[in-house]
Structure formats: C-alpha cells, structure tokens
C-alpha cells in the first residue's frame, strides 16, 4: 500500500534493487507471504421480523465474543437487518438476550452497528467484501483489510441449498460468495479467511469456494436444518440457535490468553446436540488445524502501544515481527517496554538509507529531496511556507512602492 510517488524514473529503477537488498538483509524468516498483522470481523445478520430474534442474538453474541477477545470496533463490520432491541414487540426495550436466564444483555453500551435495517442487502454485503464502494461511503462502513489480515466472516439467517436469504426478499448464492472471495484474494484483501455460517443447509453455501487460505464451517449439511436452541417464554421467541450456542459455550470458557486450537473448536460440535452435522471444509488451507489458535480469527493478538503523538502509518514488514504467536503473555510486557517504537524508527531509516547511499553517488538532488521531505518534515515545511507567505507579501509590496 506504500506507493512511492516519485517523479524521477531513475529513482524508481534504483528502488527495486535497494528494497530487495534490504529485505534479504533484514529478514531471516521467509518473506514470501505477508505477516499476519491485523484481524477483521464481518458479522452479518440477514433476517428481518420479530420471530427471527435469534439470528440477531446470534450475531450480537459473536460480536460480543469477538470484542471481548480483542478485535476493536474499527475492525468489526456489524450488519444487522432489523432492530430487535427497539422493536415494539420487545418486552425488554433496548435489551437483547441470547439465553432465557437473561444474564447477558447483548445490546449494551458500546454496540456499533455499521449497516442497519434496509442497508443490509446483498449488494452492500458484496461491496463490503470486495471493497468497491461509492466515493462518499464513510470509512467505518468499509472493510479496510490488507494482505496481512485475518478475516472472520459470520453469517446467520435463513438459508437453503446454495443460497442465503437476505431481508426476506433477495438471495446470496454460493457462487456469488465464491466470486467475491476470489476477488478478495486477487486484491490481496486477506491472508486467511474463516467463514462461519449458521443457517439451514449451511455447508452448501461454500460449495464453490476454491481460493487458498479460506476455511469454512457451516452448521448443517445439505438436506439438514439448523435448529434453534431454546425458546424464551418471557420474550416469546427463540433466543439463540444451537450452532451459535455451542460456539459461544466454547468461547465463554476462553480468555484472551488461551491457546485453544481451531480443531478443538470444530471437534466440540456434537451432532446429537446440534441436531445437525457441523461440517467444515479445509479446502486449500495450508496450516494444520491443530496449530491454529482460535484467536487467529476470533481475537486479536496485536499489542497496542499507547502514544500521544500523531499516528503515522508504520511499515507493515516489521510490525509483524513482534506478534507473539506462541506465548501471548509476553505481549503485555512488550507494550510496556516500547521496543517496537525504536525498531520502527530503525525501519524508517533503513528504508531511506539504502536509497540514500545509492542515490548520493548518482543523483544529489534526489537525496536532498528525500532528506527534506520525510514524513515528519512535510508538515513543518508546509507550515513554514504558509508563515513565510506574509513577510513575502510585505516585502513584495514594499519593493513595488
């Protein structure tokens, strides 16, 4: 994503060997694929009407889990097709429960819904996945993932053989989904993708998926229905589906530091409890499921570094170095030590030094440009230029007199 808008073609030719040189020096591990740098979650509830309360409760439960395990709101796209919390038939206004014990209010203080009501359409869903939006769509509604992202895509609602029903009026078909995922792969919009679908005959929805790095799990196979878990007689409707209920049961036992693997998640689904067969499809997913922790998709293992300075986009190559994929305990201490900040400075100078060294011998003007037009200097230069306008004006007026 870092484009070098340099007008001098000479420098373009110089950059390539310099970058190759740098990458071969700086990296001991293989660098053919990008490192995992961020996590995104796209949670979609496609059903309207009060009796589909459980689909919204499913999605909000996943939303809560995913937030609890560390994915922030900026990285979550929540699409809810109807408003159950403020529905006139809701006996508990502004509250959504996923269990009849009403222990958890899922619609708490910090629920950020990105696509609501009639905005949840197949077109908008595909636009979110492929990233083709109108110019005026705000950033909070875009999936701004890149080649280092792990994306969790969770869809729930009513579905059938190779389709998923949206808003009771249109359908998303399996080949639409496969096409969108293929486009995402070509545009490097994800590193790994986990699709989780909780509808009837869910496994048929990813029959056409062929892209590498995509894992998919559905709550039932072709010809099977997915059932709701229990009816809440107080609220008056079923409040959660079985597949999501057992998924949540698995996650409620975890916290952010746990190391449970995806295979343990997938094997926790008992067909007799689900009353359907949860089928997962590995496809061209390279890693073994025992090695992949669930937090790869459901949580966010990035450490946060608190700083009051203005955020400048860091180079992605080195920020992945400090991802603690093996022991998550160290991640807390890393942030306190603030070593990544120093490394990133080094990274920026490393970026510029090779060009500088090569450039000095060939093009002194380009080194001058690069030295004075680094990111931090640009703003101060513009400010000086603006301030200098006034005395320049005065001097010019005095000269002309």
């Amino acid at each position: 994503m870092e484009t070098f808008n340099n007008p001098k073609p000479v420098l373009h030719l110089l950059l390539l060997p310099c970058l190759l040189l740098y990458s071969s020096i700086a990296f001991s591990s293989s660098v053919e694929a990008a490192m995992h740098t961020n996590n995104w979650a796209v949670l979609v509830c496609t059903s309207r009407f009060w009796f589909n309360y459980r689909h919204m409760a499913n999605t909000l439960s996943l939303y809560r889990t995913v937030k609890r395990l560390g994915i922030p709101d900026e990285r979550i796209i929540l699409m809810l097709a109807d408003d159950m919390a403020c529905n006139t038939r809701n006996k508990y206004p502004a509250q959504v429960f996923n269990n009849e014990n009403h222990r958890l209010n899922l619609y708490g203080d910090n629920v950020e819904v990105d696509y609501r009501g009639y905005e949840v359409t197949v077109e908008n869903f595909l636009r979110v996945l492929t990233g083709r939006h109108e110019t005026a769509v705000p950033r909070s509604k875009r999936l701004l993932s890149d080649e280092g992202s792990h994306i969790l895509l969770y869809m729930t609602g009513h579905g059938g053989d190779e389709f998923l029903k949206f808003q009771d009026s249109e359908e998303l078909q399996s080949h639409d989904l496969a096409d969108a995922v293929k486009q995402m792969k070509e545009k490097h919009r994800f590193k790994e993708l986990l699709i989780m679908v909780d509808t009837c005959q869910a496994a048929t929805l990813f029959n056409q998926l062929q892209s590498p790095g995509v894992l998919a799990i559905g709550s039932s196979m072709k010809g099977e229905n997915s059932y709701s878990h229990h009816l809440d007689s107080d609220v008056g409707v079923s409040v959660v589906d079985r597949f999501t209920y057992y998924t949540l049961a698995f996650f409620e036992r975890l916290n952010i530091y746990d190391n449970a693997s995806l295979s343990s998640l997938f094997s926790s689904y008992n067909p007799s409890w689900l009353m359907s067969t949860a089928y997962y499809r590995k496809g061209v997913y390279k890693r073994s499921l025992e090695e992949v922790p669930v937090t790869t998709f459901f949580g966010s293992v990035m450490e946060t570094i608190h700083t009051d300075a203005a955020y400048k986009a860091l180079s992605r190559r080195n920020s992945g170095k400090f991802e603690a994929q093996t022991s998550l305990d160290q991640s807390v201490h890393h942030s306190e030590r603030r070593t990544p900040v120093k490394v990133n400075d080094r990274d920026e100078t490393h970026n510029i030094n090779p060009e500088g060294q090569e450039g000095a011998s060939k093009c002194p003007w380009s080194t001058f440009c690069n030295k004075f037009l680094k990111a931090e200097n640009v703003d101060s230069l513009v400010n000086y230029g603006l301030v200098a306008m006034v005395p320049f004006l005065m001097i010019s007026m005095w000269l002309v007199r």
Partner: protein
Amino acid sequence: MEKLKKKLGSFSFWNWVIASIIFRLILIYFPKNLNLSSRPEVSTPLTSFRRLAEGYWLKQSSMSPYAGSMYHGSPLLLSLLGPLTLKRIEGQPNHLLYSLVSVIADVVSAMLIRSTGQSLQLAYFRSLESLDLVKQIEGSEVHSSGDVAALVYLCNPFTIVACVGLSTSPIENMAVILCLYGACSRLIPLAAFGWVIATHLSLYPAILIIPVIFLLGCGPDSPPRKLFLQRQQQKGVLNQAKLPPGFSWGPIIHFAFWALVWSVYVLVLCGISLKQFGGLWEMFKSTYGFILTVEDLSPNIGVLWYFFAEVFEFFRNFFLIVFHVNILFIILPLAIRLHHRPCYLAFVYVAICSMLKSYPSVGDSALYLGLLGWFVNELSDMQFSLFLFCGYVGVSLLSPVMHNLWIWRGTGNANFYFATAMVYACLQIVLVVEGVSAMLNHDRKLRSLITGKPQDSKS
C-alpha cells in the same frame, strides 16, 4: 433604508463596529453555536468547518484528507486551521478559537471594504470635478460609501450567521476583498495574492480577473470616457491632463507576473503537503472537480441540487456544461457594458457567482451585499429596493421553516424547501438586473446633465 441613514448620522462608525463584534461574541457563547453550523444555508460541503476537522483528522492519521469525500477544500487551510479544531479550552464553547478567527477575518474585511470605498468615493468626486458637475450633485445627499459598505457587511445578519455558524466563508470573502482592495489601491502584489488565494479556496473568484484587469488598467470606477470628451468639446478646451488615463498594459503585465509567482508558490506548497496522497491531481479532482461536477446533492439555498437530483445520467454532463457556461456567457457582455466601472463589475460578478455556483450559502450573499454598499450614491434611484429587502428577510425566515417541515417533521417535501431557494434566486436576479439598470441610468443622468438633454428614466 432611510431610517438606517439617519441612524448612521447619530451613531458613529466605530460604535457600530464594536457593537457588531460584541454581538458576534455573544452569539458565539450560546450553546452549540445555536446549531447554525448544521443549517444547510450556512454550511455547505465546501465551507463546513466540521468537514475541515474531519479532513485534518484524516491527514493526521496518514490518510488522504480527501478520503471519503468529506473535505473538499484547500490543504493549506488544513495546515492553517486544522490545529484549531483540536484545541479545546475548559469551560469555553467548542470551537472558540476558530470563531475568533472568523470574527477577526470579518473585521479585517470590513476595514478593507471601508478603505476601498473611500478611495472609490475620492475617485468619484475627482471625476465629477473634472466634469464640472459638483454643484448639481451637491444638492442631493451624499453618503460616505466606504463607511456604509463596511457597516452593511459587518451588521448584515447573513455575515453574522456565517461567522458564528463555523463556516470558512469569512476567510474566502476576505481573500476576495483583499484582491479588490489591492487592485483599487494599485498594490499589485497584494491584488495578485488575493486573487490567487480566492481562486484557490473556491473556484469562482477566478472570473474576478476581468474587473481586476480593468481596475489596474484604467483605474477605479468613473463615468464613461465619452462624457469627458463631450464636456471638453463643450468647453472648447482639449486638456489631455484632465481626461482619465487610457488603458495601460504595464500594470497588467506586472499583475500577471505576480499572479504567476503566487500561483506557483501555492501549488508547490499544496504539492508538498499532498505528496504521499496523490499529489496535485488528487487535489484538483477533489476540490475543483467536486465543484464542477456537483457530486454532492444535499440541499442548500441554491438551485442546482434539486435539478441534478432528477436529471437522467445520460444528460448529466450536458446540463453541467449548461449551468457552468451560464456564468461564463454573462461575463463578456457585462464586461463590455461596464468596463468603465470595474468595481461595480466585480460586484455584479460576485452576485452572479453566488447565485449560480454549485453550493451557495449565505456567506456568499454577505459578500455581495457588503459590496453593494459601495454604490449607495450611484444606486440611490434603484427600483424595487423595498421589495428586495422584504424578500430577503422573508426568505431567510421561511427557508429554515421549510427545511424543518421537510426533514424533521416530514409534513413537507423537497418542493417546499426548493420553493424558497427559487424565490431567493429570483430576488438575486432582480437585484442584479435592477442594480445594473440603475447604474446605467446614473450614467445617463450624468450625460444628460452635461448635454442638457432630457433623460430617459428607464433603459
């Protein structure tokens, strides 16, 4: 109008200025700026301060300030006003610093209007002297046009609302007035600076280059050259020195040089500022491209949004050309007819632009209503002045009501709001037409005074 003139006599100029500043400060301290910044009449996609804050935040997060089609202004404004969006002082209203900046901009504009008006009036009297008409004019009331114009600009409710309502109109207006002031006072670098900055901030002041060329070439407003020749013929004297100077190209070339210097300076600064976000092309696409292609169709007090909301895609480009050429076609005939009165030409151009621009707001009207004050003496016989005054008051009261009915209560629809916008456009058209005919009548009156022929009352 009569009452205002009497009151001006009793209450001195500076008292009015201080009163208007205090009034603005009082309004600033009302909670949430009286919600003026959310009114579509006040803040448009181009002038909204909230969008500037968003653009600044985007820039600080290393993203292009034009991302998401929120901010459409100059990157220099971002560097200048951006930090003001973040500073919050305890216990003070939110954007106090920016409001103070716009108050200062208004006061500076008023002072510049005043001094330009004074130099215009001096030029007027000098030309009357050389035409030997001073005695005839002395009988009627002559007002200090500079003072009147400055006070009209400061105390105009439109200006106050634009200032308090957190829009960037006060700064754009200041640039335009700086340009006209520089041109009238023969300060060519200042005129070039004002013109370049005004064009950079919003595209339309570019057409002010024509009045500026006339101002620098011929000098400030004066009666037609023919009258001087006729007067001298009558007297039998041909005194070349008493004639107003003919058109001189020297200052124009000087102006072109300084305009080039300032343009290069501004463009280089913008290019540096947007280097990693797509450079100057991105800036032109998001600022001038946005203005010319009318991308945003949210309602405002202009007439383009309604039209472009219903035009078919196939004809959109055609109608874009029609609307923009509408302004361009008016430039040449007016320039030919009013070339001897460049400041008035500038006023007419500003009025036409603020009527036909893509996203007009009341801040633009504030500008030309202030400039109208320069010509109180020449336009004293303007017809329909009461009608226009009542019309403006009526539209400014009804337009928020119709907006409320349409958007908040849902009992009206877009036609209600567009009706007030159309009435507003009609009022501006009447103002421009009557103003131009009153000015031409004034010239005819002068000619009849010289030749002694009975004058026509209407063209």
